[in-house]
């Protein structure tokens, strides 16, 4: 990996839930650009500062990015943790935590004998798998994974539990003290209250389930073989809008049920105007996990972050003042925070800052790749496209290719890549 760490020279406040700036014995008011670096501490806070520019903005070189100004918060998405039991051992695997304003440099694995109990953490390096050995068969264990960037704790996974056992492949019969189970997976995580959660196995829709009123879901998939599986999970909100898919690859062991916990489906997002008059407000709204903190990013030469909350139905709404944006094309996306878990950003939605207000028609969403217009992007669309691969297109299909694929008048790998991105199964 030849990546370079993003160096943050600006004022950094190390805060896991970073919206809070005051306590009973500490308050940070009217922050100004600070030139000198240093560290201040109180009983509740650690406050780091380092050199910065007098003018806020971003400077880059070939090997680093300097974000000057104040209040930049490195964060990371929560890793999704899986646990596969074996004989006196548990194999853990996790998805990479995606750092924002930071690159993840290390992970810690925590183990506990009780759910929600005290976890003992061990540093394992910048890897995505770890095997816990010398465990007692038949005893349940609980695990968590934390991500770090240069020593800063950025995110933590949800807890996952597994019980080590002597594994017996079902066809070979059972033995004393051993456990024979189906080869499968149990998925659990957070979606939106009472929303549909869809799970794809190697690109094919295999399960639809409904999340509880608390947004949590848990569903099992059995009858698998031993091998690598590519799973995707996405949610559909109360307005029928789909979230971006959370995709991960996992090795499934024969005769074992693997637990995958902490899947945090990113929020859906819409805007009330496709074009907004500069200086007027644009309403950004969507659905997420109930009673969670929502971070909305508005993209422009300078990225703006706004915080809001979702209600008990998971609905959130923020009115954004566009006077800070230049005229032109912009986009916005959102992510959710609940307890110590952080989702990844969902898909971005575009809007124009211009000279007039144009209401967005959120009922007529064109789904890229949906060639047969059934509201899905799946094997049917793939097969129709594959039929035209390396063949001259007829006049009718040229129009479809323009509307739903790359629009270059031919079917090639680019069209299939667009399809793979928008895939719903």
């Amino acid at each position, binding site marked *: 990996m030849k990546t370079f760490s993003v160096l943050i020279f600006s004022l950094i406040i190390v805060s896991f839930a970073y919206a809070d700036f005051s306590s009973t014995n500490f308050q940070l008011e009217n922050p100004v650009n600070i030139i000198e670096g240093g560290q201040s501490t109180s009983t509740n806070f650690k406050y780091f500062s380092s050199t910065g520019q007098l003018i806020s903005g971003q400077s880059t070189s*070939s090997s680093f990015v300097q974000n000057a100004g104040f209040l930049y918060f490195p964060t990371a998405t929560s890793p999704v943790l899986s646990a596969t039991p074996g004989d006196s051992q548990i194999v853990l695997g996790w998805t990479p935590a995606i750092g924002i304003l930071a690159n993840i440099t290390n992970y810690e694995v925590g183990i506990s004998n009780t759910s929600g109990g005290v976890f003992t953490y061990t540093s394992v390096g910048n890897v995505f798998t770890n095997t816990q050995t010398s465990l007692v068969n038949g005893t349940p264990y609980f695990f968590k994974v934390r991500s770090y960037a240069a020593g800063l704790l950025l995110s933590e996974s949800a807890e996952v539990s597994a019980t080590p056992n002597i594994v017996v492949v079902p066809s070979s019969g059972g033995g004393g003290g051993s456990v024979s189970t189906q080869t499968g997976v149990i998925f659990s995580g957070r979606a939106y209250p009472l929303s549909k959660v869809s799970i794809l196995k*190697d690109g094919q829709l295999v399960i639809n389930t409904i999340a509880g009123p608390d947004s949590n879901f848990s569903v099992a998939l059995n009858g698998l073989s031993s091998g690598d599986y590519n799973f995707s999970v996405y949610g559909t909100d109360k307005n029928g809008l789909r979230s971006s898919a959370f995709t991960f690859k996992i090795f499934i062991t024969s005769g074992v049920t693997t637990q995958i916990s902490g899947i945090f489906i990113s929020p859906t997002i819409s805007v009330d105007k496709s074009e907004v008059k500069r200086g007027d407000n644009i309403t950004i709204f969507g659905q997420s996990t109930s009673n969670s903190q929502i971070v909305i990013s508005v993209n422009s030469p300078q990225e703006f972050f706004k915080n809001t909350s979702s209600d008990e139905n998971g609905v959130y709404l923020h009115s954004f003042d566009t006077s800070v944006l230049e005229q032109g094309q912009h986009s916005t996306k959102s992510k959710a925070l609940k307890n110590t878990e952080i989702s990844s950003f969902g898909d971005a939605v575009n809007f124009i800052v211009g000279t007039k207000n144009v209401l967005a028609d959120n009922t007529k969403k064109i789904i890229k790749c949906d060639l047969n217009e059934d509201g899905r992007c799946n094997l049917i669309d793939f*097969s129709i496209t594959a039929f035209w691969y390396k063949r001259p297109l007829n006049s009718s299909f040229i129009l479809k290719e323009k509307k739903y694929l790359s629009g270059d008048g031919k079917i090639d790998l680019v*069209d299939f890549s*667009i399809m793979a*991105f928008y895939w719903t199964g």
Partner: protein
Amino acid sequence: MKIFIKKSLIVFFFLMYFIPSVSLAVDIFFDSNKNSYDKNENFLVHVYLDTEDKKVNATEGVVSFSSDFIELKEIRDGNSSVNFWIERPRLGSNGKINFSGITTGGYSGSKMFLFDIVFQTKKSGNTSLNFENIQILENDGLGTKILTKDIPFNLYISNEVSNKKGEDLVMKDSNPPEDFNPFITKDVDIFNGKYFVVFSTVDKGVGINHYEVRESLWGWGGKYIQAESPYLLKDQKLTSKVYIKAVDNSGNVKIVKIDAQRKMATLEQYLIIGIILFICILFSFRKKIWSKHFLKQ
């Protein structure tokens, strides 16, 4: 001394300029347990991607080799990171292995497995496996091309004749292909708007060999025909059950059935039942009919 510092600075800035662009490249490479073989020896080569920090979702290209030195024995795409093949890796008419496929939702990793190739060495000397026309696209909804670096595999074949028969390369796979959901549909732009069936699955062992389709009115009868998706259905009335059989390279099969989409019209049903009854009656009275006919003569 000044010249040395100057030169060092030039080299430093040159490296600083180029190192970040290298980090954007995705590597495609071969991997094998050795690169020196005897004559008539079978060997296995894996094809992998190292996506660095990119998330990719589409890959295509060509594997070329000298048929003077090595002979293609087998291609295995079981357990591949690609979940839908546009062109399954196969030996093309150009004497090269062409492949093209997608991973829905994208994938990133240092060893993204594409497929395995089994070769047999023919004559001694130095030769290599190479990639051609590699295209790897980012999972960004636009199909952005990623800078790729293809790494060839150089091998040496000695004059010694191998006594190994390549048993260690035989992959035992008793599991059938994965379960799958085929669809019957139609589209104005293909097969003149007629009904067709689409199907696809993956195999976690040696890989899919081929598919077969059978259409049957009653569930029995009808012949399996080797087929590719999309497959134009013979029964355009959709009154037949459709069976799709996925066969892997070890001969394991997974059969999936689609029930008849429409019920047969009552008149047609009566007609078929009538014909069957007539044949049964003829069969029952065949002796009488035969003896009458014989006696007349």
